Structure formats: structure tokens, C-alpha cells
């Protein structure tokens, strides 16, 4: 009986949470199309996350491309298909690794900071203070973050794709002895617009997920430092899981 009660509680908690997050998304859209728009605030936030995330994104792309080239060589050299390495590197990066790894890194780097910041604001009554100053929480805090991440992720992914291909190129040319011109030609000839586009669409959706989940967890955080910590952890874990689930769904759509 005890177990049934616990399962029931978890079930109702899940339903309640899904309802709350749908309600949150509804309000985000409602206020995103309603004045006031704090353009300066939106732009500042976009520039902030863009500049602060570039180094981590560049490193992720560079090392992923290098590892991909090395690992592909290990496999393809067994049946003399080394020439497929440039194709594998560029396809894997643009369609899969670029968007997923970038989203996971941004979730850890930016998502956690969004959740912690909003949760701290909640705990220290700054969210209430916003209301007393006639400022809508969604317009001031949620919209800039959601818009920034939804727009920034595709740019980050483009960067990761480019730097990753360069990483693969460096390993292939200088370590595995590929001809540099043939490597680049194979990369460019094999890449289609759909490959790149599917990655960009994924990135945009992942950016939206990270921002919404992080803002939501921040807003509904518990009290005190424990509440802030839990909100941050929940934001990163939930958005990472959702990224992986949506990655499969979107891959099926673009398959």
C-alpha cells in the first residue's frame, strides 16, 4: 500500500510539474509579444552570454573534431576506407555532435547560471521587488534569456562545426598524413545544406529548452542556499535529458 501511495504521489507530482511548465511557457509567449520590450537589456544579455561562452565552445569543437578524426581512422583503416574520414567528420559534427555537445556545454555553462541567478533573486525577494517596481518578470528576465539562447545556439553550432572540421583537418593532415587539398575538397563536396540546416534547427530548439527549463527552475526554486543549489542541479539535469530526447525526435524528423 505504501508503494502504491508513493507511486501515486510521484505520478501527481509529475502531472503537476508538467502543468506548471506548460503554464510557464504559455506566459512566456504571452508576454513576449506584449510590451514592454527591454531591447537594451535583451542585447546586453545576448552579448554577455555570447562572449563568455565562445572559449568553451571553441575548445569543445576543436577537440571533438580531432578525436573524431582519430577514432574514425581506427575503424575505417581496417577495411581501407580512410578516404571517408573527412565525410564522417563533417557529417557527424554538423548533424549530431555539434548541436548536442554545444547544447550540453551551454546547459552547464549558461543554464546553471540562469537558474542560480533567478533562484537567488527569488530567495532574496528581488523577484517581488520587480513586481513592486511595475516590471514584468517575463519581460525583464525570461524573454532576454530565451531569445538570446535560441538565437545564440545556432551561431555557436556554426562555430563548433567550423572549428571541429579544422580540428579534424589538423589531425588528418599532420598526424595521419592526409593530403590537405583532398581533405578539404572531400569535406566541402560531401556537405549538403540540409546537413547544416538540420543542426541549426536542433541548436535553436535546444537553446529554447535550456533557457525555459533554467528560468522555470530558478523561478520555482525552494528557499535558502539549498533551494538555489537544487534549482541549479535540476536545471542542468532536466535540460540535458530533454536535449537528448529531443535530439532523437528531431533526428527522426530530418532522417
Amino acid at each position, binding site marked *: 500500500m505504501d508503494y502504491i501511495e508513493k507511486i501515486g504521489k510521484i505520478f501527481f507530482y509529475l502531472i503537476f510539474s508538467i502543468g506548471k511548465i506548460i503554464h510557464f511557457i504559455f506566459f512566456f509567449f504571452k508576454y513576449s509579444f506584449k510590451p514592454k520590450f527591454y*531591447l537594451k*537589456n535583451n542585447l546586453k544579455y545576448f552579448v554577455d552570454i555570447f562572449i563568455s561562452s565562445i572559449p568553451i565552445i571553441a575548445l569543445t569543437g576543436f577537440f571533438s573534431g580531432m578525436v573524431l578524426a582519430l577514432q574514425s581512422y581506427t575503424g575505417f583503416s581496417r577495411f581501407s576506407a580512410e578516404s571517408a574520414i573527412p565525410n564522417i567528420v563533417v557529417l557527424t559534427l554538423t548533424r549530431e555532435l555539434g548541436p548536442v555537445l554545444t547544447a550540453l556545454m551551454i546547459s552547464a555553462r549558461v543554464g546553471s547560471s540562469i537558474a542560480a541567478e533567478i533562484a537567488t*533573486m527569488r530567495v*532574496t*525577494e528581488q523577484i*517581488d*521587488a520587480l513586481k*513592486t*517596481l*511595475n516590471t514584468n518578470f517575463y519581460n525583464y528576465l525570461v524573454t532576454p534569456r530565451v531569445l538570446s539562447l535560441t538565437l545564440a545556439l545556432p551561431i555557436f553550432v556554426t562555430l563548433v562545426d567550423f572549428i571541429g572540421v579544422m580540428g579534424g583537418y589538423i589531425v588528418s593532415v599532420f598526424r595521419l598524413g592526409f593530403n590537405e587539398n583532398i581533405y578539404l575538397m572531400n569535406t566541402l563536396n560531401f556537405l549538403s545544406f540540409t546537413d547544416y540546416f538540420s543542426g541549426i534547427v536542433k541548436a535553436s530548439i535546444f537553446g529554447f529548452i535550456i533557457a525555459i527549463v533554467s528560468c522555470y527552475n530558478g523561478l520555482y526554486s525552494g528557499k535558502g542556499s539549498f533551494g538555489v543549489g537544487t534549482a541549479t542541479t535540476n536545471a542542468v539535469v532536466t535540460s540535458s535529458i530533454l536535449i537528448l530526447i529531443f535530439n532523437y525526435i528531431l533526428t527522426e524528423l530530418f532522417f
Partner: protein
Amino acid sequence: MNIEIKNLSKSFGEVSVLKNISMNIKNNKSTIILGKSGCGKSVLLKIIYQLINCDDGEVLYGKKKEIDIDTFGMLFQYGALFDSLTVAQNIAFIDHINGITSYKNKVLLSMKDVGLDSINYDKFPSEISGGMKKRVALARAIYKNPKVIFLDEPTTGLDPINSDMINELILRIIKKKKMTAITITHDIQSALKTGDEFFFINDGIVECHGNCNEMLKIKNLKLDEFLAGVKKLQKTR
């Protein structure tokens, strides 16, 4: 503006915080809401300000049921200053976020009103003391010239000297600007100094109310216990 609270109730889960509370807050008076920690004072204040909803009852602002947020200001218990903004941006928050940049003189005037040196203009909240944070929060609360000001535990976390200075400041500002003030506190000195009327809340109900200068003469068992507790605490110090 008179604020009339009628049969207000609020529960969190199974805990009933406010039970059928009614009170009348008079225009241009300083009303003190007294009570022990956790008796529901802050919840009451947030319901009056419509920051949270009540389960039952209503609040009338003059004759209206909806609050005109621009005519109200609030000083939060711990200031609730925005960490990423400077002192000036905090004080002139409504102008700052709306892209108005010509607020410098108005901010300096507000800073002068609350006894803040202009040297703090560009500092961040993390760079100033607790007493100064309270002054910045007070300056922000009065920046838009509200008709009604809510003060949530204005002297919490301050030493006796700073507490007294903040009380003096509040008293001076509400008299100068002719505001209706609603203060939540468990600090008797603060209540006696800044209040005209008081409501004593105990276990979610209004136990007694009256004029602040008669507070010590009123015969009420719960209020006596509360005052005796405060006096005992002061003696042990």
C-alpha cells in the same frame, strides 16, 4: 488613500497563517503591524501589495479592488537590491530599464534624502554596508513618489545606532512626503518611534489594536507577553 482589509484568510498547505483578518489603514497615518516572527505579518503585507493572493476576503484601496502599483512603494526586509546594477541604477530602476538616462539629478536628490553620500552613486550593492543597502532600498522605494509605502522589518539586521538612524529617516520621509506608511516589525522601539496606530497580530488573528502612544497601557494578555518578552531580551543585553 484608506486601505480596508476585510476578512482576509491565507493558508499554506495545512498551515493557516492568517485567519479572517480585518483592519483599516488610515490615509496619511503610519500604521504598525506588530507580532512575533512567523505570525504572518510579511504574508499580510504581500497580500496587501498583491504580491501573493489571499484564499478568502478582500482588500480595498480607497474604493478600488485593484492596486495602482505606481502609487505604492516597498522597502523589503533585506533590501532586495539588484546585485548586477549600481546604486544609482537600483534607485532609478524604472527609468533605467526604460532607457531613460537623465535620472542623475533625481537620484542624487533621493540619495541626499536618505543620507547617502554621492560617492556611492556608481558602487554595487556588494560594495556597501547593510545600513547603506537599507538606505538605497528606501531611496528606491520613494523614487517614484508613492502615496503609500510598505516597510517590511526596516531595522532587521542593523545595529542599534543604524536602526535608530533608519527610524529617524523613515519618520522624516513619511512626514515630509505625506505618505501613508505600513510598517511590519517586532521592534517595539521602532514601532513607538515611527507609528501612529498599531495592530498586534498573534496566531493569524488581530489580537488588539490602538494608538502607538497607548500601546504600553493597553491590557491584553498576548500583547503583554510579547512586550514582556521584548523587555526581557533588552535587559539580558
